């Protein structure tokens, strides 16, 4: 075969090879398919029923389970972190073998604290540390600690002043602060033996309370022990009887019973009422059960779905602050203990101070509704919760479906099934 014929053969093979592109602009209505995609936009006023709020007095996150310890001294809000360090052993090794000596005194104590969140408008921040009763626990109330927070001040640390010092370190008190790349402050506070005595009967546990103060916006969050790597840490420099060889100086860290941390606040969290509450501390969630008409659930496709709420009260929290609300499908509807579906989630950010009492709060739930339409066996319930939970006093309450005029509504934009195959 000549070169020309070979080229012709190759050209024919290329032109005849499989290919397809049939997309063309339609000439409607003459040369368009008779069926069209119709879009229906409707508000379902009775689709949501049996909605309830849960989380008070024991929240989905409570102060002693939250990942942050909230400290605030604001008009209408006083919150104080409290913590108890873990126990240390009464005997400390004094040589390279197993020989140990009894702790007979304290040289000093270093307390490490992380300030993980701070308003950038906070000025002249200081934290005051108080000695608290060792018996603090999750049942301890703000009122129960009013006395020690009045008469047991250990010392005050001026954080902004400390940051301004060379090397971020106070050469007299030995306090220092380090700031990481995310803007978190790591405080190292030092106490002498009078401020932090070693009490053998308490196994070296130390209970402290913290008040924050500032010229403006005295509100910060400390890392809790639940936030890995950011909880409070204590280091003891102790004096040890070295069995007749004099006093040895050793380092001791808690190795025994774990510590405890939480925060107490005033005024107490308002109880649940007939509304749908979300957020706050202890954190509330609201469970909404949605009944979709069968025609929509079985054979339609959702283009957009929005939950519409009317607040029963303005959102509580710092003015000009904001918080996130998450609408999350449940894996199964077990009421307040419903497991949440981590995949089908929609979010909204509520800005406190910009919301008027008559404003409608809209949460896009398209992802969740699409999930329900795609799997008609799943429970059509969703939970509203704050994100993150239990680390913000901000909360919002909406009218529930028991208020037929102001209850939640579902605004749907969907397409019914296309008339495939029909003339």
């Amino acid at each position, binding site marked *: 075969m000549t070169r020309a014929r070979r080229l012709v053969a190759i050209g024919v*093979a290329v032109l005849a090879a499989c290919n397809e*592109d049939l997309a063309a602009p339609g000439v409607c209505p*003459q040369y368009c398919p008779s069926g069209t995609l119709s879009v229906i936009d409707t508000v379902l006023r009775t689709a949501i029923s049996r909605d309830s709020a849960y989380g008070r007095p024991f929240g989905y996150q409570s102060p002693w389970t939250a990942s942050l310890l909230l400290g605030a001294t604001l008009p209408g809000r006083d919150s104080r972190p409290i913590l108890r360090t873990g126990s240390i052993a009464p005997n400390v090794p004094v040589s390279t073998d197993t020989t140990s000596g009894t702790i007979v005194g304290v040289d000093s104590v270093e307390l490490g604290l992380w300030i993980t969140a701070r308003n950038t408008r906070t000025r002249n921040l200081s934290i005051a540390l108080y000695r608290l009763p060792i018996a603090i626990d999750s049942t301890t109330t703000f009122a129960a600690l009013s006395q020690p927070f009045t008469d047991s001040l250990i010392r005050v640390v001026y954080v902004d002043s400390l940051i301004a010092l060379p090397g971020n370190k106070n050469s007299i008190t030995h306090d220092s602060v380090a700031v990481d790349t995310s803007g978190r402050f790591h405080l190292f506070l030092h106490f002498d033996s009078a401020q932090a005595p070693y009490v053998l009967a308490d196994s070296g546990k130390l209970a402290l309370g913290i008040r924050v103060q500032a010229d403006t916006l005295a509100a910060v969050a400390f890392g809790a022990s639940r936030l890995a790597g950011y909880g409070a840490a204590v280091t003891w420099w102790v004096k040890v009887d070295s069995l007749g060889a004099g006093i040895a100086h050793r380092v001791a860290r808690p190795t025994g019973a774990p510590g405890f941390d939480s925060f107490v606040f005033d005024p107490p969290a308002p109880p649940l009422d007939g509304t749908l509450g979300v957020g706050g501390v202890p954190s509330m969630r609201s469970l909404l059960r949605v009944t979709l008409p069968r025609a929509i659930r079985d054979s339609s496709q959702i283009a957009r779905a929005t939950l519409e709420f009317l607040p029963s009260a303005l959102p509580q929290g710092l003015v000009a602050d904001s918080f996130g609300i998450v609408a999350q499908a449940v894996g199964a509807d077990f009421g307040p203990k419903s497991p949440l579906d981590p995949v089908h989630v929609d979010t909204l950010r509520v800005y406190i101070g910009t919301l008027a009492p008559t404003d409608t709060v809209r949460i896009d739930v398209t992802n969740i509704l699409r999930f329900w339409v795609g799997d008609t066996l799943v429970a059509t319930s969703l939970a509203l919760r704050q994100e993150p939970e239990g680390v913000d006093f901000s909360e919002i309450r909406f009218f529930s479906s028991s208020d037929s005029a102001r209850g939640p509504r579902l605004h749907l934009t969907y397409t019914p099934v*296309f008339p495939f195959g029909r003339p």
Partner: protein
Amino acid sequence: MMPARLLVLLGCALVAAQPARAQDSQFEIPGLGTPGRWESARARMTAGAFAPFDPTSMVSDAALADIGALTASVVEGATYREVEAGGTQTWLRSTRYPQFSVGGPVSHRLVVGGGYSTYLDMSYDVTTRDSTVLRGVTQPYTDAIASDGGVTDLRLAAGYRVGSRLALGLGFHVLTGSTRMSAMRRFDDTTAYLTVDQTSLVRYSGLGVSGGALLSVTPALSLAAFARSDGPLSAYVADTLVRRSNLPITAGGAVRWLLGAKARLAGSVTWRSWSRTGPNAFDTVNWSAGLELGETRPLRLGVRGGQLPFGAGPSAPTEWGAVLGTGRVVAGGRGLVDLGLERLSRSSGAVQEVAWTLIVGLTVRP
């Protein structure tokens, strides 16, 4: 390159098969689809004029009687189509395998054959732009409605030579196939409105019978007559009957004149009662004329005209085409490769389309 290697080359292009379908057309959209041609590559290169006499075509069952030996034939068509509508021009392309036939004698008078061909092609992809007011805001969107597939005609036929001058044929047809349909709406504001995309499989079924006669008036002049009747075509979605459409009755005739040993001339006319299938449908009359010159490396040419069955206007869209092709005997006479180029022009009102189709055919006589 050896002829055998050429066979392999073309065979590879053919074997990369898609479902058997004919050529697409925008004019199929308001109706059932684009009718298939039931023509072998050789017959198509004469615009279908020789199809009623061609045993590897499926127009006339009587032609099977002249197959002579076990023969298999397949056709491929690669179409490049320009659609002009609404002031815009769009180039579309598709590759189809519209026919495969096989047949052979079971006695010196009786021949049986079968195969598949496209009955209706239902492939299109239409995009439109529009807007709607949602939640008080005008939302522009793009709709895309697409269909991919068609109805295939499975034929079992027999041709019987009654005498040296007359042959009769009878065929039984099973219509089957499916289309994968999709309808999608994409809003411009994709952050607020998600794209909706629905898909479905539409399945089709139906039955038909056909018959034909071939008469040699003189050694040089032959006449053919053929007819076909198909039952209703049922469309199912998820096993639910969603549509039942009447299918047309087909009747036609053809004449062939042998101009000596190396020239053949033919013409044919076909009438089909498409108007009974539903709205936007018209009865059609299609004609063709073709000429074949030469034996081992023939030159073929043909012209065709007529109507398309579906259109949105008061009259049927019209079609006119011309085709030029050739063929080559390979593998010691056991294979035949056909190659042709067809130009079709269709129009109805403001919509026009021109299609160029590269036709490749392979016929094997083992």
